[in-house]
């Protein structure tokens, strides 16, 4: 009964919008979201639809990757770095009409941290030990130790109504947030429709009446659809399609450096990759420029441990001595270390076209240095299972990045870290990671992360391959689009359509 009423109300509102010659922005995405609850589903195909559109966090990551105020208009950090006090924007309402208060913020954070909800985002804010509602528009967070990346992490924690705290079902289908667009309709395998939220906290935004995320699995189909004007935006276009769309009339391809990267992971617990010298030799065998040419259609830059998008942190890859491709020297190094060649290995490959191509080029390059690699192209479930169980010699994959070095390094390379499936455990790295995490002095932090990058680049358990170019193809009828390296469609609220 209740659902029916809701459905009728939605249908009615759709009619009204349609009657007023609504400006609808059609976006084509490659797969259905697996749900729309921002705390449960972290896959890109869900985040691109609801992140920064339906939902907002206390902070947000701007196009230049700086942390900007969102639902929190300002904040103060105590001198010891353990206490953060946020002032909330006033007069913000949720899409269901209720007012957003500090209680909702507290409930949202508790929801992410709770065992029952089992949110994959929990570790991003796990240092929070106490959440105190000071008044309706003030909230105070206490950390167990200084945790510099917390402001970045909070941008990824959507604020939802307090009554959702223990409800793990409603938001999956009917998201309710404070963002510029409110959820309208989800047609499984058809589209997800969002409509402009009239009471959005920023006056005059959003500019379009409706945004439709059409689910179109075929790249070729999306491409033709954009050229013919059926779709206005294709987020996250693959390099081959981007290259082809650049030549298309009335289409602009926006590009930026990706935060995410492609990689080859090594099992630091299994011979021979338990030896640092073998990991170094493997890095030397690779010619990253050639991989980028062949597998990414030239769209990318050689990757070090941090994305060059993090201009304040990333060390230039030219300074890594193992990045000068030299298979002969790699082979000599292995022979000198008394390793019998060829080394026979298998490599699990993520089922994605660019990664499959990268694996093939890596296979050929590594063969010259004495690595004989068998490629195991796996179904996604098998790949994830083997990844989780550290059941691999090598794997080729792609990882999402993080705007803060700690957000990526700590869980990946710290001994026993939560995504350290490589079983890498290095005393020096552990010490430097602790230092980077707890130091609030910017220069000391920078020094620690420089040292970490220099060591990890050649001898870490990951051969970082390339940061791709994030390309979003936009039809020329769209005005005001700006691309965000974190892949979210942050600028959608400023976008308007011209005919």
């Amino acid at each position, binding site marked *: 009964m209740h659902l029916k009423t809701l459905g009728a109300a939605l249908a009615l509102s759709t009619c009204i919008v349609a009657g007023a010659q609504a400006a609808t922005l059609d976006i084509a995405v490659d797969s259905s979201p697996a749900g729309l609850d921002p705390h449960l589903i972290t896959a890109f195909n869900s985040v691109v639809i609801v992140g920064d559109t339906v939902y907002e966090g206390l902070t947000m990551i701007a196009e230049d990757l700086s942390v900007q105020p969102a639902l929190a208009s300002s904040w103060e950090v105590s001198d010891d770095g353990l206490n953060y006090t946020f002032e909330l924007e006033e007069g913000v309402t949720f899409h269901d009409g209720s007012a957003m208060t500090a209680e909702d913020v507290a409930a949202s954070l508790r929801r992410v941290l709770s065992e029952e909800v089992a949110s994959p985002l929990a570790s991003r804010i796990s240092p929070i030990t106490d959440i105190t509602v000071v008044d309706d528009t003030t909230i105070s967070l206490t950390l167990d130790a200084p945790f510099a990346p917390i402001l970045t992490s909070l941008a990824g924690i959507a604020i939802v109504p307090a009554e959702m705290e223990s409800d793990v079902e409603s938001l999956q289908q009917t998201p309710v947030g404070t963002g510029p667009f409110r959820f309208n309709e989800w047609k499984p395998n058809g589209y997800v429709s969002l409509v402009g939220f009239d009471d959005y906290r920023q006056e005059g935004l959003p500019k379009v009446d409706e945004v439709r995320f059409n689910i179109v699995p075929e*790249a*070729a189909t999306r491409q033709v659809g954009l050229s013919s004007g059926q779709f206005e935006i294709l987020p996250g276009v*693959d390099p*081959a*399609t981007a*290259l*082809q769309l650049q*030549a298309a009339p009335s289409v602009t391809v926006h590009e930026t450096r990706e935060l995410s990267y492609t990689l080859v992971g090594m099992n630091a617990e299994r011979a021979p990759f338990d030896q640092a010298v073998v990991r170094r030799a493997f890095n030397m065998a690779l010619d990253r420029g*050639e991989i980028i*040419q*062949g*597998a990414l*259609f030239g769209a990318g830059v050689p990757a070090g441990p941090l994305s060059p998008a993090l201009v304040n942190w990333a060390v230039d890859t030219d300074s890594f001595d193992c990045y000068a491709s030299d298979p002969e020297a790699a082979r000599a190094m292995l022979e000198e270390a008394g390793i019998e060649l060829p080394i026979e290995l298998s490599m699990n*490959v993520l*089922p994605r*076209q660019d990664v*499959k*191509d990268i*694996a*093939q*080029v890596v*296979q*050929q390059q590594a063969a010259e240095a004495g690595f004989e690699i068998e*490629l*195991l*192209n*796996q*179904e996604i*479930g*098998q790949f994830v299972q083997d990844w989780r169980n550290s059941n691999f010699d090598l794997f080729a994959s792609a990882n999402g990045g993080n705007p803060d070095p700690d957000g990526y390094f700590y869980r990946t390379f710290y001994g026993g870290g939560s995504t350290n499936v490589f079983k890498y455990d290095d005393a020096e790295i552990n010490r430097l990671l602790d230092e980077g995490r707890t130091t609030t002095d910017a220069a000391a932090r920078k020094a620690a992360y420089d040292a970490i990058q220099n060591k990890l680049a050649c001898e870490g358990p990951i051969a970082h391959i390339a940061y791709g170019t994030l390309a979003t193809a936009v039809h020329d009828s769209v005005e005001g689009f700006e691309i965000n390296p974190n892949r979210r469609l942050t600028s959608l609220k400023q976008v308007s359509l011209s005919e």
Partner: protein
Amino acid sequence: MIATLTRDKLLFFAVIFVIVQIGLAVFAPLIAGDPFAQIMASRMQGPSADNLLGTDQLGRDVFARILFGYRTSLLTSGTAVLLALLVGGSLGMLAAFYRGWFDRIVMRLMDVLFAFPIMLLAIGIIAVLGPNAFSAAIAIGIVYVPIFARLLRGPSLVICESEYVMGARAIGASDVRIVFSHLLPNLASVILVQASLLLSAAILVEASLSFLGLGAQPPIPSLGQMLAEGRNFLLLSPWPAVFSGFAILFLSFGFNLLGDALRDTLDPRLRGQEQ
């Protein structure tokens, strides 16, 4: 008379067409270059003297990959049809031979398998076994088992009830002897025709599975996979997608024509009608 000649010409043509393609696959290493060698400097080139059908996104020779793709395709589909024939054919014949509860159980099982959509059953089996050419062969084989079982059960029933098999039984011929000296020879033409037609269909199914990334895995060349990769850069270089599509068509076409021509030649009813 003229019609008969035309039909035989067709059979002749079909046989040649199929043999040439099998020959290309078998002698691929002698005819074409290395299908794995990547040359980044010459990526996505059109046809030239060096690369007869151009190069793919990693600078590999499309001609070599198509010939080796023929191998993958023929091996996978051939194994699948053989598996289906051995398992399904035996089940069908045995069901007809023994009748009773055995017949009923086997044929119900066949009904169950037959009720699945072909591609979905194949996709499910491959998901369980892991995506590679061998799984694809097994999956297509299982999907085709009920087809052979049903196909051979009917005629087997008729033959088993025929007077000469009854007679052979009466004089004490063993079951094995009856199967090999009476059943099989009489079913040979049906089997030959159906195997050829199913091979043609299996080549298409294998290509569809590879297209979805569920067949032979890179770097092993397969036609469906080349098509799937090639469509990603169709506007930059249409050659890999266009040529691999034609390759699938020719291969499947050849076996279908062969089966069709064989049926005309072997089917006694049609033959009788022409006289």
